[in-house]
């Protein structure tokens, strides 16, 4: 049984259908890459799977860890072990990073939090990601640079240890050094046993990772399903090869 099974999945926003009849599987312990042009529905897929109320699923289903999740509230899906790393994380002024991490850890552990274990893990993760401890006492994403926001998403990924993490363009707007940190974090998450569904435009992040599979979306549905060769092709030729080959 796949960890995530998407069958004939359509998604619409404000009555406009963005994703059409998409079917795909994500296996446990794998890194699946989703590529595609802007506006092909990559982020839509992420938001819809995670239960954003504005994203409607008129047809199809998504089975996560054996349970249908369409129509479920985001916190319930999170509690089942799915995580979304945001392309643009929101700011919550007045709430420190550490308080937020504690609150989330507690929420995902049935209301329990072991402070000793939490602290030990947190310090380890901070060190591995090269993040200064002062970061913990800043307000959640408030006044963060683009790079800091992405790093915080990775920090959460490593602390919350989901079964499946959908990462929506974790590399956008990053310089090479920051991107290496993100790649490092993704590799660490995989060691934690987290399966990754990675959304990206570019191949450059993939050079630091070891994807099992590359999927290309076009016009709101699956266009190609293969391996790194697809990413190489996109890197050299752009997305036009999709249409030129079909015609």
């Amino acid at each position, binding site marked *: 049984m796949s960890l995530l099974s998407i069958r004939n999945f359509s998604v619409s926003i404000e009555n406009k259908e963005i994703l059409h009849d998409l079917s795909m599987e994500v296996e446990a312990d794998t890194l699946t890459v989703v590529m595609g042009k802007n506006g092909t529905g990559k982020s839509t897929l992420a938001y819809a799977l995670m239960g954003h*109320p504005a994203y409607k699923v008129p047809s199809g289903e998504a089975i996560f860890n054996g349970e249908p999740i369409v129509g479920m*509230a985001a*916190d319930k899906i*999170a509690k089942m072990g799915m995580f979304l790393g945001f392309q643009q994380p929101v700011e919550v002024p*007045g*709430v420190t990073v550490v308080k937020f991490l504690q609150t*989330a850890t507690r929420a995902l552990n049935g209301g329990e939090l072991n402070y000793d274990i939490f602290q030990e893990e947190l310090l380890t993760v901070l060190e591995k990601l090269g993040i200064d401890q002062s970061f913990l006492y800043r307000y*959640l994403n408030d006044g963060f640079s683009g790079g800091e926001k992405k790093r915080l998403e990775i920090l959460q990924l490593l602390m919350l240890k989901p079964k499946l993490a959908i990462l929506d363009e974790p590399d956008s707007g990053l310089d090479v050094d920051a991107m290496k940190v993100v790649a490092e974090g993704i590799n660490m998450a995989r060691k934690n046993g987290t399966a990754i569904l990675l959304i990206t435009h570019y191949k450059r992040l993939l050079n630091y990772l070891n994807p099992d599979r590359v999927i290309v979306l076009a016009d709101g549905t699956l266009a190609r399903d293969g391996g790194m060769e697809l990413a190489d092709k996109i890197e050299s030729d752009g997305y036009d090869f999709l249409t030129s080959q079909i015609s």
Partner: protein
Amino acid sequence: MKDNFTTINEDYKYGFSNPEDYLYKAPAGLNEDVVRAISAMKHEPEWMLEFRLKSYKKFMEMPMPWWGNQEIINAIDFSKIHYFVKAKGGTTWDDVPTDIKDTFEKLGIPEAERKFLGGVTAQYESEVVYHSMKKEFADQGIVFLDMDSALKEYPELVKRYFGTVIPFTDNKFAALNSAVWSGGSFIYVPKGTRVDTPLQAYFRINAKNMGQFERTLIIADEASDVHYIEGCTAPSYSADSLHAAVVELVALDGAKIRYSTIQNWSNNVLNLVTKRAAAYRNAVVEWVDGNIGSKLTMKYPAVLLKGEGAHGEILTVAMAGNGQHQDSGAKVFHLASNTTSRIISKSISKGKGRASYRGWVKTIPGAENCVSDVRCDALMFGDESRSDTYPRMEIYEPSTKLTHEATVSRVQDDQLFYLMNRGLSETEASSLIVNGFLEPFTKELPMEYAVELNRLVALEMDGSIG
């Protein structure tokens, strides 16, 4: 007249041991006889009776305030209100509404205290604590009494300052309070004395503070320091629909007073309170004022910066849920040179709640180099809540430096979604956003109050989003 009341209330000295008798004798509504009766019953000095009578006349003459919620205040029927001291014990635990009992439970407040806060019992077991505190204070020369006792024990001190910061002519509700006041706290801190622990426990054991028209006066003598905490985050049930208090603070040269309140009246109460401080040379006054309960609150803690170098600080929070209107804010008058002030006002409105910020900053000609920073932030949930800002700036001195910043933000679905994505329920996510928004306020509160406030926010947010 006086004699009549003495007979009826022979046992006054020990409190109203038989309040129903008194309730039976005294009619609803206000007239000169009722005012005289209140004064006589308390065996007050002549000057206080005179003060009450002229206040009563003023109350009758004065128009309603032009600000706040006109619809609600103009609908007050003064003839239906009982104006005498309403002794607690008139209600029973069974009379306290279930939702309030539930909230006590959820906040984890002990049984005895619940009954007290519910207005059922007049005291609870920490009376012993109060007495030991009293001894400690007495050794330092600190006077800490309910206002009625203070008038008897320290008549000169009371007379010297009573009504000097808020004249009875100030506004209709201050006039009303001046005419019929009862209970409240009186504090005098001697020169150079610092009171290390906030004076707070007292409140929970002094039922007289819970009165409808309480009157509080705090005098911090030169270079003294005191922090007073009124109320607590637990809901205060009151069967009375009108609460009109007056609080006067006097910070003499170099003194510091901090006054913290979190009012959480039950949602039938009109909370129309006048709070004002006079800060003399190099004195500091800080109001930390939270408003969660009531149907309508109209309250604008004020500081009159009367001496050079004085500083006023007002931090207010208002939380308006369905059916509530919180009209709150702050006033600072810079009446001397080199005075500084800071106002931070935070409001939250949700459901059909309405939060208004009403502020007034003034500098007078010749009060040079005054600095004032005003910041008001509003946070709104859903599409039906309302938030208004009514700032008033009167700057008659060109050397004044004034900054005013205001923000309004509506909680976005994306914010909630982000947090829910990390396993927080919608209620938990909303509470976290609100707690973060209130952080500049809560960090100024003693720890146990901050914790209680955070829990209360969670209760307020529960199931009432959108």
